[in-house]
């Protein structure tokens, strides 16, 4: 049961990571990257590390996402080919 959870979560992590790397729309990349962080939060919590999970949720999914969004707002949304 818990193995299944791990497998699903790790597969989701890999899928999101690949999507972020391939996305040419940086706004989409940032949003998917925040989803990566949320998935990671679940993995941490499942692994019995609630401290790390809370930090990941607040910093990984929250703060860095906003900082990335501000950066996009001040530069450009499209990756240069």
């Amino acid at each position, binding site marked *: 049961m*818990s*193995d299944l959870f791990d497998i699903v979560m*790790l597969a989701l992590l890999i899928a999101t990571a690949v999507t972020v790397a391939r996305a040419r729309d940086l706004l989409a990349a940032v949003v998917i990257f925040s989803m990566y962080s949320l998935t990671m939060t679940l993995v941490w919590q499942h692994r019995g590390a*609630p*401290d790390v999970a*809370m*930090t990941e949720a*607040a*910093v990984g999914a*929250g*703060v860095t996402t*906003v*900082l990335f969004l*501000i*950066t996009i*707002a*001040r*530069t*450009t*949304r*499209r990756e*240069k080919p």
Partner: protein
Amino acid sequence: MRPWSLLLVLLVALPLVAGVATLPPHDAPDAPIHTQVGALYLERGVAETGMKNLVTAVLLNYRGFDTFIEVVVIFTALAAVLALPKGSAPLPKGNAPLPKGSAPVPKGNAPLPQPDAARSQGVGGARSREEEAPEVASDVPVSPVVRFVVRLLAPFIAMFAVAMLFRGHITPGGGFQAAAVFAAVFIALGLVLGQDRAARLVPVDWRPWLQGVAPLAFALVAWIGWRLTGAFLGYPIDDHTVQEAMGFVLEIAIAVGGGVVLARIFLEMET
């Protein structure tokens, strides 16, 4: 190029997958984390450090040096952000320093992609209306739903951070987590209310001290420990009251210092 990158990916990925595959199952009593140094912490931690939360005990006591350097690293990150030149125009020439090896710089100035052009007009219009309005906030009006939800939840999230800080000795959480949540509330409020109103939460006069309070408190506590025990960052092993007081000072300093550093990075990026 592509076969080589594929080879590189495989070289990195295969050991990682192999490592995940050989992880011990959950709750296995003979997993390495239960037999190595972790077992020692569990066995002696409470008696030696006087801290009931063993994560905190490892963070502040057994691995105190690591945490000291960690807060210095966070402080240095802010110093690096503050050292960047400010006030460069956001869009028209904004993407000037392209990474080396990409297209030559002058090309970037020529025809802007569509969304950027539209956006720069929006900024120009907003500027003419009110000069000092923060760009991100004035670009698109904040949705009333988002504004309401953030303002409704902010006090509760802040209370959660305070609870994490002060209950950190028996529950998960502590200084770093509280700092992260404080900063998240601050940033959410800053996005919704406008940066000026959020900036007032961190008084300008206090900023230099608040930003540096975590490394400073660590240095102070380390010095006190040195006077008491003869070891830098030493904790008096038989006096649990002093140990707890030292840990408490550090936790509060980490929460305040880390939160203010994150908030200041946000403020710097917005202006």
